[in-house]
């Protein structure tokens, strides 16, 4: 309760929460905000008005204008919200689970297993994240699942470290000895008594990571791997805008809409998660009382 009250009272995190709420609403009501047309195979295929290369400015038909290849920016921004939630939450939840499992096993068994697992973490930390994710996405092919797999494969290490150190800390506490004394099994100790107390540091890490994982995913799309051509994804839109940064002579801002709308969407989404994550860390980190 203290946490919720703090989040609602602090103006920065309140703003973050409201932004997140807005994104959730956009994602939920996407079919109403941007109804799919009847010839689409999936609602995530952005409808296009022809195949002309030059982007078109906002008009009654396309509220935010169109990209190169005439994809509707408004439609892709709205449905891209769902994509962003899928990628962000998908990557973070799976990597938090993997990381927690590895961290818990390392801390619980200790000794050689701990050493091995932590060296494995070191190896993964020594890998350049974006490049490794890029290679894996290229091998796995285009689409959401490859992106999520690639970002998860190189993004779980932080959770393993945090969970391991939390368990090592909590294990020495009196209430754990008490539970052990009345005969709780090791599995019960870990799952019921220790892990719940390690939950908040993981939550802070996960909240902060959600925004940055969406950033990385759109960076992949920007670099030309990532989602399929025309898939409703913010990174895709940015990639399309790249060739149109330079307007015609005398009118450099001619194609502003190709960059501004998707750029603002990613920026606000990441900002929302970071604001909430920052406030969560302030209130949950015992070393950092407000």
């Amino acid at each position, binding site marked *: 309760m203290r946490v919720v009250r703090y989040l609602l009272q602090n103006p920065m995190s309140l703003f973050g929460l409201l932004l997140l709420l807005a994104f959730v609403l956009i994602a939920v009501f996407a079919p109403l905000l941007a109804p799919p047309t009847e010839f689409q195979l999936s609602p995530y295929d952005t409808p296009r008005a022809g195949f002309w290369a030059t982007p078109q400015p906002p008009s009654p038909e396309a509220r935010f204008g169109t990209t190169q290849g005439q994809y509707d920016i408004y439609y892709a921004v709205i449905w891209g919200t769902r994509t962003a939630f899928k990628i962000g939450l998908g990557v973070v939840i799976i990597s938090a689970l993997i990381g927690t499992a590895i961290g818990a096993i390392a801390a619980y068994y200790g000794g050689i297993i701990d050493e091995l697992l932590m060296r494995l973490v070191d190896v993964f930390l020594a890998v350049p994240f974006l*490049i490794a994710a890029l290679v894996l996405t290229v*091998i796995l092919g285009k689409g959401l699942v490859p992106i999520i797999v690639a970002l998860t494969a190189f993004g779980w290490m932080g959770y393993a470290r945090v969970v391991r150190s939390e368990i090592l800390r909590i294990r020495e506490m009196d209430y754990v000895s008490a539970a052990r004394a009345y005969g709780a099994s090791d599995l019960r100790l870990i799952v019921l008594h220790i892990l719940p107390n390690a939950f908040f540091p993981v939550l802070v890490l996960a909240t902060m990571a959600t925004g940055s994982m969406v950033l990385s995913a759109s960076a992949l799309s920007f670099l030309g791997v990532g989602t399929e051509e025309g898939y409703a994804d913010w990174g895709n839109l*940015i990639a399309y805008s790249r060739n149109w940064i330079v307007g015609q002579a005398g009118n450099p801002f001619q194609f502003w809409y190709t960059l501004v709308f998707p750029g603002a969407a990613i920026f606000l989404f990441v900002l929302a998660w970071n604001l909430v994550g920052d406030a969560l860390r302030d209130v949950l980190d015992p070393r950092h009382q407000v």
Partner: protein
Amino acid sequence: MMTYALRRLIMLPVVLFALSLMIFGLQMSLSPTQRLAAYAPTDDYLKGGQEMIRTMIEQYGLDDPFPVQYARWLSNILHGNLGWSETARQPVATALSSLFPATMELVFFAFVPGLLCAIWLGSRAGTNHNKWQDHSIRVFAILGWSFPTYVFGLLMLLIFYSTLDWFPPGRLSQWAITEVNSDEFTRYTGANTIDALLNWNWPIFFDAIRHLVAPVITLMYVNVASITRVMRTSMLETLRQDYVRTARAKGMPRKVVELRHARRNALLPVVTVAGMELAYMMGGVVITETIFDFPGLGQFAAKSAAGLDFPAVLGFGIYFALVLVALNLIVDLIYPMLDPRVKTR
């Protein structure tokens, strides 16, 4: 502390070994024909057609079992032969060493001023906790931290290139490239600004600077934002300690206590974070270099990763692991200088 640093050094071969195994494993998911590109320039065997390809696969043993291939590949690498990069159309080692100065130049100009700026901003925010300075610096930091690099970079291009035409993309203008590659210009380091100064060639120097401004600002903003956050938190924590109160109580001026006593100790976590940050910049200014078409290591790594140019990816991976270990080592060595308590631990 020293034993810890030494342990890291001993771990390096293990990390490199695991890294090579991982990358080799990924590489093995491709067909022998695709992997042939790692051994010879494509033109060589494409001329010969299917027959030639089959002979060459045989010749390089690309059909052998995994361990056999891995051992052969590893011995090649241990002999200093990193292989051929199809992306750069050069041996990997040549490509990496020719691109390294460009990235270093970019990172140097972004990191050093960025770090100083972040320390200054962070300590200002910390000493003015919950005042307007603190709030505005926090907002500045969290905005920078949330700004997608490519959006920021594209905005920079939009404003400073297509509108004002001050800072063009690339690393040098066309005339400058011709001049730099001519005989009158001696390449000492490969870093354009330094070479221009050593050659006493001011037009080249200013041209190099002109091309550096936009990517440097882009890189700096992200970097400043994340270090500022750490510095602020650390400063707040330090200012709450007893010795700060003691110093104030015995009548020391506020400024002296804050800037001389507290800031020094608050720098400790910043050293760690800045070291990591520098490592990631040296290895991963992928987006910035791609946007500004700046031919450095990050752009090369991204291109070769997208083209599944495994020798290049592995070469880059080794380079990155070495940078990471070296910087961690440096941080470990700086730490005891800032905090004498660490030595006794």
